Each structure stands twice: as structure tokens, then as C-alpha cells.
């Protein structure tokens, strides 16, 4: 291999790096600066709607990991009463198949993403923990009505290429 371009190739490359010195960096400084996630984000922790759920267990059947456990009993009007609805988030792979398959739109993916825990047992969510709360918002995954209400996602495409 010869050194045949007299260093022109290296010089060209160095011009590119120099150009980047005057471009805006693309880094997001995470804890202070937060980007809006996608409206369909499959975030942590499922959200369960107590009123809509009929206890049919379609979600548990569609889960590839077997992370959802439902125990029901027969109610007075020949319906199911959900006695236990437990999701082990430690096994959850956030594929969203349960939310998609729910025929009554009673299950939502979470919108949040900061749900780290110190112990594995804290990842197991029971009926109360699955309900929506101030900190837990449903995401629009497979739920177009929720999706329409959420803010649009921030894209790197819109932020990049700005001259400093």
C-alpha cells in the first residue's frame, strides 16, 4: 500500500472534524434536559383499568413471558370478579402484545421511563399498584384516543445541524 495521495485524504478528514468544532453538539444533558418520548412509547409498568377489565385473561394468554397472573371468581351476575391481577415487571419484555390483545381496552402501556427499583420483589405489581396515578400516565400504544392527547415527540432531526 502506497502513501499515494500526499496526505490529502488525511487533510480532508481533518476539515470534517474541524467543521464539527463549530456545530452544535447533539448531546442531551439528561437529568436537567428531558426529551418528550414518543406518544406510543412502550414505557415501564402496565396500567390497568379496574372498571373496564372483565377478567377474561386474554392479556395473560398473549404474554410471551407469562408475566401476568390473573385470578378470578364467579360473580353474582355470572361475570368474573378479578381477585388478583399481578404483573411481574421483572419478566416483562415490553412487547405490548397484552395491550394490543385486550378486547376491552382495559390495559395500557406506561408512559414513564424512570422506574428502576432496588429489589426485584418491588417489580411485582399488584392490583393497586397497576392503577393509574399522578406519576403513572398511560401511553398511547394501541390506544389512539390516549395517543391524540399526548404531546408530540422531540426528534433529533429537528434539533440537529444548527450552527452554533
Amino acid at each position, binding site marked *: 500500500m*502506497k502513501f499515494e495521495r500526499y496526505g490529502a485524504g488525511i487533510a480532508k478528514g481533518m476539515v470534517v472534524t474541524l467543521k464539527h468544532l463549530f*456545530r452544535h453538539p447533539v448531546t442531551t444533558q439528561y437529568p436537567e434536559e428531558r426529551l418528550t418520548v414518543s406518544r406510543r412509547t412502550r414505557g415501564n409498568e402496565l396500567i390497568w383499568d379496574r372498571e373496564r377489565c372483565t377478567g377474561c385473561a386474554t392479556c395473560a394468554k398473549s404474554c410471551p413471558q407469562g408475566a401476568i397472573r390473573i385470578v378470578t371468581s364467579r360473580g353474582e351476575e355470572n361475570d368474573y370478579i378479578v381477585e388478583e391481577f399481578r404483573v411481574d415487571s421483572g419478566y416483562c419484555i415490553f412487547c405490548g402484545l397484552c395491550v394490543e390483545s385486550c378486547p376491552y381496552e382495559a390495559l395500557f402501556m406506561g408512559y414513564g421511563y424512570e422506574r428502576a427499583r432496588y429489589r426485584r420483589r418491588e417489580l411485582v405489581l399488584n392490583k393497586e399498584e397497576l392503577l393509574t396515578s399522578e406519576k403513572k400516565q398511560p401511553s398511547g400504544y394501541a390506544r389512539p384516543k390516549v395517543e391524540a392527547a399526548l404531546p408530540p415527540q422531540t426528534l433529533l432531526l429537528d434539533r440537529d445541524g444548527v450552527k452554533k
Partner: protein
Amino acid sequence: MSLFDPGLNLSAYYPGTLPPEWPGGYWIHWGVFVVIILAFVLLMAMGFIWLERREVGRFQARLGPNRVGPFGVLQPVADAIKVLTKEDIIPAKGDKLVYWLAPVVAFVPVLMVFAVVPFQDGALLADLNIGILYVVAISSVSVVGVFMAGWSSNNKYSLLGAMRAVSQLVSYEIPLGLSILGVVVLAGSLSLNSIVEAQHIPFILLQPLGFLIYMAAAAAEINRTPFDLLEADSEIVAGFHTEYSGMKFALFYLVEYCEVLAVSVIVTTLFLAGWKGPLLPPLLWFLIKVFGVFTVIVWVRATVPRLRVDQVMAFAWKCLLPLALINLLITGIQVLVWPEVLPWAVVFLNLAIMVVLILLWSKFFKLGGGRVEV
């Protein structure tokens, strides 16, 4: 009398030792400058660590460290605390004494280089009349430390790194020395202070080829891209200091940046007229130039890939060495034949010679071998 008084020309009095009229004489001068050099080297090394990370960050379209202190300037301090409090591991089958000595052997010579560097006119620890020879001689001791580290770690990657280190550093000593000789011939002195004084125009203009050779050879000496084979992280993990941790690793890390500092300082002194410059005070000029040289080194690091070991060796022996010899020959002829020619004529002549030589070598020089039949 201020320390950095420009009128204080020590070498004029008594080359190689101390000024007789100094209050307290020998020992005070000694003590003051040792403190200054230690402080200068350590502070600058930390500054370089911060600057390199910031600059590389910006070259790569990201921010670089910006958490500790304003603009992250205290990042090296935080790093130092982290590294010093880490567990100090010695490999079970390593050679413990050598393992322990290696960082010291690598670090001390680098520090010693600064003894002869003039921060401004006459402001230096010892104005040796063989200054540049001393620098070349001392700085090559570092490789012994590197080899000791690689050998004593009892790690195959370390050994590979150490073997690369020895072959590469020893080879690049030669073009390095020869490219310095051109400057020495022009200045007519080996003393660094005299070399600076002799630069009415910076020697980079009179010695463009010598400057390029020196930069390439020095980059190899201090294991900088594209010659960072010793610690090529994508090949041999971390080379000779794979096994090092804690304080010993910190020393190696410091050695790396002190070496860069040493090279920046020497380049500034030899080719960029050291502390000379209009308007601003000499010390400031000196620092500006040092940082400028360092930025170029970082810039190269951010851009180019790494050469292979045989290519590095071929580059030293087949490209840099002949070019350095030719450069020395041409400089010698110029000094002997036309000592009085206008400097600007020589500037353009030397630039033309450089371009011709580089073109010639690019045409005929083959970079390293290929596959070995096994």
C-alpha cells in the same frame, strides 16, 4: 527582583548553573524552580486532560465533561480522587518489585525533561549547554518503565504492548534526533535558551520538513494517534497498563499527559520561537503556543485511524529517517554556503524542497508489508 524579570539573563552570566547575585544563591534558585516545575507540570497535565476531553468532545459533536466545576474544569481532580481511592491490584504471578517500580521509572524522566525548558528568557532550572541532548537522552528512559510494566504484569496483552513499545520508541528516537539536529545547526547551540534566542524568525519556517518529521516522530514517542500502538484499545485492550489500577495507573496516565506536555513544550521551544512574541508577556506567549501545539495533536487524534505495527516501523525507517537525513544535509549546506542570505529566500526554498521531497516519497514509499505466509 521578580522571578520572571525579562532582564534576568542567567545564561549570559554563568551557563549551566545559577546566578551569583541571587539572594541565597544556589539552593533558593534550586528550590524555587523545582516547586515551579512540579506545579507547572502537574497543573498543565490536568489542564491538558480536561482540554483534550473537551476538545475531542466538540470534534465528535458532543459536549465532553461539564459536570464538575464550571465547564467541568475540575473533572481531572475528580478523576484523580476516583483513581487514587481505587483498589490497587498486583497480578498474582506478576513480578512485584518491577511492577511497583515501573510507573516511577516511567514518570521521573518525563518530569526531568522540564528542568532545561525556558519558560521565558533565562527562567529555567538549569541552562545546560547540552540542553537538547539532555532532553533526548532523558526522555527515552521512559520506555524502560513501559517495558518493565508490560513485562511484570504477566499478561499477554501487556507483553504485546511492551514489545511494540520498545521497537517503536527505539526506532523513532533516530528521526526525532536527526530532525532536532537541523535546528541545532541553525541555532549553533544545544542550549534550549540559546536556541530560542537564535530564532529571529521561528524555525518552523526555516525547517518546515524538520518540523513535520519531529511532529510525526514525537507523536510516535508519546504514543499518540496514529501511532498509539502501545495502548491500542481496540487491539490489545490497554497495552502495557492493562493490569494497572489505582495510584500506579494514575501515574501512567499522568506520564501520558506529561509526555504530551513535554513534546508541546519542546516543539514550542525548538520550532515556534519559545517565549518570543510581540506585545504579550513572554510567559503568556509560551503558554499560548504550548496549547496551540497540543490542540493540533488532539485534532489529529480525533480524526485519523491507527497504523499497523509493521507500517509504523516502515514509516520510521523508510520514510522519516531518509527524509530527516536529507533535511539535515540541506540545512548543513545552507548554513555553510549562504550564511548571510536573506532568511525569506531560504524560507521559500525550504518549503519548495519539502513539497518536492514529500511528493517523491509519496510516489515511491511503500507502507509496510502484507500477509505473512505461515
